[in-house]
């Protein structure tokens, strides 16, 4: 358990699952959840390299920034999705290919 490779493998699995969700899901909210998975995978990598690279705190600071950006992104993306739902009555992102109705 105490090895860098384990964490990197878990993180790569999480990243790949998130990527799978982004390319296959057709629902805006589901795509957003998959993006959160990808961001978490990146964070695990930051912290794993910090822990096994001499406990360098810079990785922690960058992970903190990633969490902040994820929060901002989720808020704005959900506002956009709710607007799309109000205008088009669907959140299937394949149906939303026009800037106005």
């Amino acid at each position, binding site marked *: *358990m105490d090895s*860098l490779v*384990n964490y*990197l*493998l*878990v993180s*790569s*699995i*999480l990243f790949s*699952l*998130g*990527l*799978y*969700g982004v*390319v*296959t*899901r*057709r*629902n805006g*909210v*589901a795509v*957003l*959840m*998959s993006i*959160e*998975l990808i961001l*978490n995978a990146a*964070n*695990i990598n930051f*912290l794993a390299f*910090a*822990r*096994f*690279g001499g*406990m360098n*705190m*810079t990785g*922690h*600071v960058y*992970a*903190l*920034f990633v*969490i*902040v*950006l*994820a*929060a*901002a*992104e*989720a*808020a*704005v993306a*959900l*506002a956009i*999705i*709710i*607007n799309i739902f109000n205008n088009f009555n669907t*959140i*299937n992102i*394949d149906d939303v290919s026009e800037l106005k109705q």
Partner: protein
Amino acid sequence: MSDIAFWVIVGITVGSSFMVVQSKSLLYSAYALLFTFIGVTGLYIFLWADFLAVVQVVVYVGGILVLIIFGIMLTNKITSVNISHTSMQKSMGAVVVIAFMGLLGYMILSTPWLVLSNAEPSDTTSAIGRLLLMDYLLPFEAVSLLLLGALIGATTLSRKDT
């Protein structure tokens, strides 16, 4: 003992993230995402990141997940049972993603990582705070401005009529 705990946490994380991308119901996906976040928090604790673990719970579980569930509830009429939710090109996506995962795994296993030995710190909060207010003061302020902008933008976007 801690070996078992680590692998249980890894199992929870990977299994529930698989549920997130695979589940038929969007609400089940959101609940599975909760367990993914909890599992990732456990991994953070194994990585000696106590402050980040607490932030993960507070921001992701307390903030982002609640927002996502709000989004699901607001974009589906309560009367309609079937939550509009389909996956497309599953097999093609799976092939591409499994190939990508194999590539990543090969890269990880074949790279000779340089691992530095170090002792477990007593706490990480003071070091993070020192870095944030000294070396990373400008990014810190920029991020606070960005959060303010995102807050105002999200409120403006989701108003009914301007």
